[in-house]
């Protein structure tokens, strides 16, 4: 395995950081150089992400391109990165939106250009890192790291009330994250015995598996279960609370109703690049968190809370759509439409059927592209007029026909016209909801979005693009070459992903199957063998060298007894005079 | 023999006087003197118990306390002089720069 093979994920994660360092060395007055350098860095990240995506084999192991190195062995934290199908797709999305965000700010950001691009690069690194990490503390570090550059981007380069929006965004997300930290620590202590604790996601998950099965069998009978093992007992008592803590953190990010009010303010005040990244990628963190962490770790809690969560998702869908009808500000309207679309993602996941989960995963990608494109295109318009109110525009299609055409195509993607990507995602989510154990009414209510979304989008399009050309809009010039080149990839992808979704879906399929199998452990756990559900990852390497892939733990032995640090036979061989350290003592 | 309780009572009395002075008196020098009073009271307690037990642990502790008191007095008076130079007053009630 070449250097590139083993380190590809790390390269994708840290390439933006390397370029950030390079840019830090440039003088702040050389704006064009800074922009070009950032664009190069982002493009390189995109190329690497594409390589990663194309190199991912759907038929292969669950996590590919893994890398693991010890970090804080005494606490059981390792630097463990790797991707599965969904993570690889989301990393590609992040990589794609990076250069586009830089291009969107090319002529828009003129002050403190260096700091802005530094923030963008660090943000890129943090986002990719969140998707790629397989260790809970590493995930948490990257998760929190995303907040700070975004806070700066909104707070410094935003619109009139930027500071309020930035603070609101930061505090809201932080509160949820802190609860998640508590839950992570709880799960660290509960699931593993004192000597063998680790923050590794796979290890924690595998330790929980048999306990989950016990609790699930118990929950289905409905009686008090006296014979649970101690781990199952703690899971039975604390599982719902831990799930709620995780769920709150991710629900704020998604955003779900009722913790969504930070989103409209953040979007309205953020600059175009900030909105693109926020809507395109950061909102997916929430759904990704549910997919990877919250739901698989606590399937029994999910089963109990499913109707409530699904109801919240549907409220998000319909309420978000109804909100849009009352908006006067374009960006606020698009922000609420994000709430509506991501409600679909949540519903698809909560349906716990293969069609629903596949639709949810695909919808995550779709939303990134279509809403990212909406913010991108509107940013171009905002750059010309610096107003966001719908009433200020009107009849623009006459003077900006190319812009109107591109915007219309993206609008159709947003309202799920067949032939665009939105249709495939929504169709699969709705089908999955109908197939699931949720009542039929849920599916019907969710399908109402089919009527409501064209109502608000076409209303906005009508008021902005059609009608009489009025006032200041006479002076608007159509899109230039750079702007068309920025918007065209997203528009083309919207159509391509609608006509040929199968290549994307096939990479997501194994991840979907495993997700559904793991999540259904809470309700119909008899069907799958525990061995199929375990996460098989790299072992931690010895003191030197990179770990070799070994077969995962055998079924029936869920608890890892190996522990993060193997007894270093090789270490002892190198230094015979020094007695090998006693593992239990080190960990105290 | 004078019993230990008498010494302890005296020490407690001196300590309370000192504590009262620290909390109430306005002049910083007087506060310092009261702190010295408290320290001496504790010294007395140590010596009383040393005499009761018959070993010299109490004496050793008393020496520690004396040394600490001396050091603290030196530094404290230096700070006090600096404060007087910048504020022009030694009245503690007037020095409230740490107020919210």
């Amino acid at each position, binding site marked *: 395995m070449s250097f590139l093979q083993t380190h590809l994920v790390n390269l994708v994660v840290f390439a933006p950081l390397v370029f950030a360092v390079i840019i830090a060395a440039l003088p702040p007055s050389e704006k064009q150089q800074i922009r070009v350098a950032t664009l190069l860095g982002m493009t390189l990240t995109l190329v690497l992400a594409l390589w990663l995506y194309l190199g991912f084999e759907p038929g292969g192991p669950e996590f590919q391109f893994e890398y693991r190195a010890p970090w804080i062995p005494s606490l059981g934290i390792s630097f463990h990165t790797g991707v599965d199908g969904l993570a690889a797709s989301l990393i590609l999305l992040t990589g794609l939106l990076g250069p586009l965000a830089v291009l969107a700010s090319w002529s828009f950001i003129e002050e403190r250009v260096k700091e802005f691009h530094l923030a963008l690069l660090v943000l890129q690194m943090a986002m990719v890192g969140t998707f790629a990490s397989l260790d809970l503390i590493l995930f948490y570090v990257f998760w929190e790291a995303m907040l700070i550059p975004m806070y700066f981007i909104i707070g410094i380069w935003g619109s009139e009330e930027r500071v309020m929006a930035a603070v609101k965004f930061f505090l809201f997300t932080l509160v949820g994250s802190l609860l998640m930290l508590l839950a992570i620590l709880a799960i660290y202590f509960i699931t593993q015995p004192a000597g063998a604790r680790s923050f590794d996601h796979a290890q924690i998950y595998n330790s929980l598996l048999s306990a989950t099965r016990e609790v699930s069998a118990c929950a289905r009978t409905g009686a008090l279960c006296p014979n649970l093992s101690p781990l199952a007992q703690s899971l039975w008592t604390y599982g719902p609370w831990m799930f709620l803590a995780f769920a709150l953190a991710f629900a704020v990010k998604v955003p779900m109703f*009722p913790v969504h009010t930070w989103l409209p303010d953040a979007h309205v005040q953020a600059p175009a690049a900030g909105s693109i990244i926020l809507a395109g990628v950061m909102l997916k963190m929430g759904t990704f968190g549910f997919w990877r962490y919250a739901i698989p770790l606590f399937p029994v809690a999910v089963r109990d809370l499913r109707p409530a969560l699904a109801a919240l998702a549907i409220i998000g869908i319909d309420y978000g759509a109804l909100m*849009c009808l009352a908006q006067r500000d374009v960006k606020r309207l698009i922000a609420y439409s994000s709430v509506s679309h991501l409600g679909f993602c949540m519903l698809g996941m909560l349906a716990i059927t293969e069609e629903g989960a596949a639709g949810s995963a695909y919808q995550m990608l779709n939303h990134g592209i279509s809403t990212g494109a909406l913010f991108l295109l509107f940013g171009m318009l905002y750059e010309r007029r610096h107003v966001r109110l719908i009433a200020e525009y009107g009849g623009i299609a006459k003077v900006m026909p190319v812009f109107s055409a591109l915007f219309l195509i993206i609008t159709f993607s947003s309202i799920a016209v067949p032939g665009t990507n939105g249709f495939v995602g929504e169709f699969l989510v709705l089908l*999955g909801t109908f*197939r699931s154990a949720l009542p039929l009414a849920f599916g019907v209510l969710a399908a109402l979005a089919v009527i409501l979304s064209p109502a608000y989008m076409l209303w906005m399009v009508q008021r902005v693009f*059609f009608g*009489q050309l009025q006032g200041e809009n006479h002076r608007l010039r159509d899109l230039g070459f750079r702007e068309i080149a920025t918007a065209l990839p997203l528009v083309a992808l919207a159509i391509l992903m609608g006509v040929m979704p199968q290549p994307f879906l096939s990479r997501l399929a194994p991840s979907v199957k495993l997700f559904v199998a793991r999540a259904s452990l809470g309700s119909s756990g008899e069907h799958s063998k525990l061995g199929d559900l375990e996460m098989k990852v790299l072992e931690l390497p010895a003191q030197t060298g990179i770990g070799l892939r070994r077969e995962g733990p055998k079924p029936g032995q869920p608890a890892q007894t190996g522990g993060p640090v193997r007894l270093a036979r090789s270490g002892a061989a190198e230094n015979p005079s020094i007695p090998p350290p006693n593992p239990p003592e080190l960990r105290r | 023999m004078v019993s230990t309780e008498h010494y302890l009572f005296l020490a407690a009395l001196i300590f309370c006087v000192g504590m009262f002075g620290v*909390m109430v008196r306005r002049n910083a020098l007087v506060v310092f003197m009261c702190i010295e009073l408290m320290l001496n009271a504790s010294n007395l307690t140590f010596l009383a118990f040393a005499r009761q037990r018959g070993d010299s642990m109490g004496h050793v502790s008393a020496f520690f306390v004396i040394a600490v008191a001396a050091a603290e007095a030196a530094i404290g008076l230096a700070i006090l002089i600096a404060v007087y130079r910048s504020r022009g007053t030694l009245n503690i009630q007037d020095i*409230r720069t740490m107020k919210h």
Partner: protein
Amino acid sequence: MVFSECIRHAPLLECLQKSPVDAQSMAQMAWLIIALPLAGAFICGVFGRMLGRANTNLIACAAVAGSFVFCVLAFWAVNDRATTLISPFSRDPIRYALGHDFGTWFAAGSFRVNFGLAVDHLSAVMIMVVTGVGLLIHVYSTSYMAHDEGYWRFFAYLNLFIAMMLTLVLADSLPLLFVGWEGVGLCSYLLIGFWYEDAAKAWAGRKAFIVNRIGDFGFLIGMFLLTLWVSAFQAQTDNATGQGRALEQWRAGVSEQGPLNLRGLEQVALRIAPSFAPMAGAVSLQTPIQSGPLEGNTFGQVLVAVLLLFMLGAAGKSAQLPLYIWLPDAMVGPTPVSALIHAATMVTAGVYLFCRIGSLLVLAPAAMAVIALVGAATALLAALIAFAQNDIKKVLAYSTVSQLGFMFMALGLGVYWAAIFHLVTHAFFKACLFLGAGSVMHGNADETDIRRLGGLRKEMPWTAATFLIASIAISGFILPLSGFFSKDAILHGVHSSQLAGYEWVSSAVWIGGLLTAFCTAFYIGRLYLLVFEGKRSPDAPVAHAHESDWPMIMPLAALAALSVVALIYGLPIIDVGDGRQTLIENYLSTVFNLPHQLARIHRTVSVEQEGLFGAWALAWVIALAGGGFACVLYLWYLPSRRGAPLPAPIRTLARWAANGFYLDQVYDFGIVRPIKFISFVLYKVIDSLLIDTLLVRGTAWITARVASAIRLLQTGDAQSYAAVMALAVLCAAGYAVIQVLK
């Protein structure tokens, strides 16, 4: 054997039966039928302005013409006796059909949709109509839009529309049909709002799209329920019955093509056992579903629900009650658009859908009754509204709604071939009427109010002649042209069929149909007479109307000719043993034999062939009466009362009819305004007030106030700090002493 080989040893007439291209290659080339207009749309849209008007016209018309050529080839191939399609769902070959699977579109879990195109006699008729009439309208548009700046957009949208409609017709599975279904809705939105600078016109486009979407909502949910239904069927049929191998084949087909493939659905309809003769292990309509989300309902109940949901979709697309309100407003678009989309093609999508799932439809007489009643009610209502309209296009719009109602009446009673026949003839004469209206507008400075026209027969002879022929075709007045035969086929078929359990529906619908036929003759007569006969109105916008040029006249003439010629298909000249069939009934029987067979087996629809000539006579008399009444009224009675107002009750009725019986206002107050109000309330009260202000900012405010209170502890007074410390130590010491003493 192909045409080229045949011609060497057999006479021409015999060889015309053989297609020049063999079925396999034709099936693989079927994608070109859709691809050509799609490419035309792309080129006209992106490069149209650069290429110039003449080139854009040429490319657009050439694209549709090329597609037409391929449609002719497909039509020819499908007429060949040797053409068969091996369906993956059964071992039996399907004759007179061809199809090809172009790969998977998307698949997840057990669901799958493929890009599959299929042509059989029904699709062949439809695609010929779509591309043929489409080509004529493209030629017409080159002249109609000759002065419009956005010509490149127009032809791009028009080509895109043709491509989407062809996708709808050629699709071999419901989701792919839905792609075309929504696609035509999209193009309708773009074309109705074509002159977007007028906000009202753009709004009409949006209204059309949203009302269509309400129908699509029904269609989608119907598709999902149907998928669940097929899964339940798959789970509950037992292989142990005599149909074991067939079921195995069907299951293999489902995993390969997905559950919503049209051929697969036909197979399911075949395998359902009749309710009154249940077989062990087989599923009948009365069998309850045992597991899954539909548990507890019988197969029959779910099927009725699915079909009613599809009816909601069809009501949206084909402008039936209660979703027809978008069609009259859609007349603000350019007239060729009205002709193509809202007369000939898009609005017929609902009819086509039900013909395609005809095998399932005959299993649910409840749904059929509803469809027939909705069709009849719509037909009558729309015809009454058309009485009082003064805008030439609005009359024709309501007429379209009414004629579509006829088609749904036929569908509801199982007379599928009559619905399709009427669809084809309606495409011809309605497109001719609309294009004629466009010609009138073109020659009269875009005047649409018929009270301001009049006496145009001498000034616009070609327009008048074609308009007259089309009017006679639609009404059947004096001369029985194609429309007479198709409408009568429907009425006769409706009268002869009975639905099991709903026998009264047949008579009710028949009477409604007769009344509507009377009304049709009346309003069309009124339209023709007011526009072309009599004296020129004093309010006319131009002194002399000029006849349009050849690109506009030629399609009019062609369509008028077709309206006449198509009557041949309605003549009962084919002998099939127990009676005579019309040409078109015989042609479409390859597709509709299966539903008729199923109707007989399940005893849901019973047909008694009655006197045909009696029915013809009745229809002719009614048409004569309606047209005669119009002539009397508008040629003699009203001109003789010029100036005197009509009696009050007639004026009130006329006003009600002119406003569409205020249905639009009912929707506005009942649905649109409440939703806007709810949205406003939700935004202001819940989001802004409750969540944001109270909860979010409230939390921040409380935190700030508590902090303000607590900081008062920081007095800055060192002595008070000392006092507090002393107090604390005292308490701790006291506590320790007490603990020790215990």
